[in-house]
């Protein structure tokens, strides 16, 4: 362990194949995998061979990034001197239309993460993958695993069955809060709704760019439905959301909040207040101004040094070498991003990280 090293809030453990997960499924489901011929559960959010999905120098002979804890330590933890890394498994269990399949596979993925990763390297923590198809099942999965303090957050995708602020989703957030877990939303979707506001797109590149738009509408939903006013301890983390859209987005939302307050009487503070109090963003991809000299001017629009959490987004290709920190950020801010902000956000890290 590198004491005082960065806390990496968004790392993706590789799944070598469905066979890796299989032993963690109940026998009935194992049998079904075979009889129905289930395919690998990779999502189109990250096509296996897309250059973004695995950075070229992190791609092994099998075409994959680290699929075990030892390889991850070598490629992702040691080069960045990472003290603690949070695993967010993106295997596509949320995509099943069947609530039962979603439930069975979310359980299996979590048990696999625990046995194959958390038990193998004490620098690792993980988010609880939940079956987004059914709120009761999601709550049940959080309750099942919350006793293990190495699970430090709850993982959802930003594109789901219904807008994330809707009241029917709140039991998930309440269960998370009960156990001191932030609710994290990662880029991606169940694809149960069209991924863009104009429908299905032609190119992967569009889909990826549009992920930032999904976070914007998701944040509007969380704020306008009153999730933060009614669940005051709710902490939300946006992972791989992009960040530079935030100021312009908040200015527009604030203007319309002023104009539409009669339909949102419970939203008593300007939207920026809820973001500062409740919402955090992973660092990569930053999508910042190309000229580092303009970084100060941009960061001045953000009004807070508390919002960003260090992430490499390993193994996604967001930067070269170990240059995870965008050029132009001040050293003081960099320190907050790598350590202070993650510790302030993830209550369980404060208990277990020195």
């Amino acid at each position, binding site marked *: 362990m590198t004491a005082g090293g960065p806390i990496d809030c968004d790392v993706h453990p590789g799944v070598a194949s469905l066979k890796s997960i299989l032993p963690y499924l109940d026998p009935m489901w194992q049998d079904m995998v075979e009889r129905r011929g289930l395919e690998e559960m990779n999502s189109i959010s990250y096509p296996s061979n*897309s*250059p*973004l999905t695995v950075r070229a120098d992190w791609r092994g002979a099998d075409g994959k990034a680290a699929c075990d804890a030892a390889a991850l330590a070598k490629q992702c933890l040691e080069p960045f001197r990472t003290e603690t890394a949070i695993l967010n498994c993106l295997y596509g269990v949320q995509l099943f239309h069947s609530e039962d399949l979603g439930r069975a596979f979310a359980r299996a993925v979590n048990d696999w993460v625990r046995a194959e990763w958390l038990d193998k390297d004490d620098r690792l923590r993980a988010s609880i993958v939940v079956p987004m198809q059914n709120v009761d099942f999601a709550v049940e999965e959080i309750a099942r695993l919350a006793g293990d303090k190495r699970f430090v957050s709850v993982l959802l995708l*930003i*594109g*789901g*069955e219904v*807008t994330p*602020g*809707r009241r029917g989703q709140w039991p998930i957030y309440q269960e998370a809060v009960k156990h001191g877990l932030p609710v994290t939303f990662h880029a991606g*979707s169940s694809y149960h*709704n*069209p991924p*863009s*506001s*104009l*429908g*299905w*797109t*032609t*190119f*992967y*590149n*569009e889909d*990826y*760019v*549009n992920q930032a*738009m*999904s976070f*914007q*509408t*998701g944040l*509007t*939903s969380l704020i*306008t*439905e009153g999730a933060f006013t009614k669940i005051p301890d709710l902490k939300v983390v946006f992972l791989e959301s992009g960040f*530079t*859209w935030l*100021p*312009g*987005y908040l*200015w*527009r*939302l*604030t*203007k*319309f909040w*002023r*104009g*539409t307050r*009669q*339909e*949102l009487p419970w939203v008593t503070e300007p939207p920026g207040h809820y973001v500062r109090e409740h919402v955090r963003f992973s660092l990569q*991809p930053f*999508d910042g*101004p*190309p000229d580092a000299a303009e970084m100060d001017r*941009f960061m*001045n*629009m953000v009004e807070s040094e508390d919002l960003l959490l260090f992430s490499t987004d390993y193994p996604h290709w967001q930067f070269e070498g170990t240059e995870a920190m965008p050029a132009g950020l001040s050293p003081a801010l960099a320190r907050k991003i790598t350590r202070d902000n993650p510790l302030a956000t993830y209550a369980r890290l404060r208990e277990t990280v020195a």
Partner: protein
Amino acid sequence: MNVEVLNRSGAAAQASSRLMIADGDIHPRPAKASDLYPWLSKQWQEVFEAFGGRARHGWEKGTPYPKMQPMASRRDAWPKTGGGPASDLEMLREQLLDLHNVEVGIMNPLSPSGQGFQNIDMSIAFTRAVNEWQVAAWAAPEPRLKASIVVPYEDGVAAAKEIRHWAGNKHFAQILMLSRTNEPLGMRRYWPIYEAAQEAGIPVGIHAFGYGGTPITSSGWGSYYCEEMVGHAVCAQAGLTSMIMEGVFERFPNLKVISIEAGVAWAPALMWRLDAQWKKLKAETPHLKLLPSEYLRRQVWWTTQPIEEPEPREKLTDMIDFLGWDKLIFATDYPHWDFDDPQYAFPMKISEDNKRKLFRENARLVYGC
């Protein structure tokens, strides 16, 4: 939001030596739908009255999300002559053109315009009628007002035909589409529109709203009007992203596009994200020869209303610096409730040069008037 505008003395406004301005977004409406009937066949009048326009949402009347004001309009914009806001030319002259020194005002008729009707034949007939009406009722009697060619955009070929019908007519300065199309804006079904627009040398204005049937979010429908209004910004971003990626700007390099009423402050961050991600993923789109931001800078402009209002307002100045002052066209959105008053919408220090661009010169370059 200017639900009612300050009652300032017309004389005082006139006396000041203010700029003549262009207004990129004015919404005239017929006092009653039957005002369009002189240009609509009896058959379509009957179908419209019996079955309506059948947009892609479920209400027979009204909009999916109730507005915050009747007809989303300023309380003081209802004419004494009856009819809805901006249905009376004399009142529009007094309340907008004269009071605010509007030299050129671009009309974007929204309701009813025939755009987005599910029945394409009716959409074709209706948009033609609306175009005829714009000339007869507004642009011919009031030369400061310029019309937009409303097109049945879900049928690209028919829309191109409508553009060619009016090309060269001095009353028209723009082609109008709505942002929430049935499919992403760059799809090939819409290319005949862009081809005809480039050929005619008329910019395509893409105004927020419309009912393409797809939820704004990737998680289905939001609950509130607030979500829809804020969401127009992401619809516009998805539309421009589609146009870039599909190669619309590469294929039609002289096409000009104006994003109307969808916000301004998101544009720099969108450019940064597009460029950063395309650099990694460009193997997928070998038809693109420039960075995504280079297409946007070359071929897209943004109308300002509803202008973002950060505190302090100098942050907006910084954001516009990132975008470029040559990319903005001032707009009021008259008669809607979120009207931007040219005197008060930009309460920060702006150089005289940038002010001229914002309020007049950019519009002259883009619309040619």
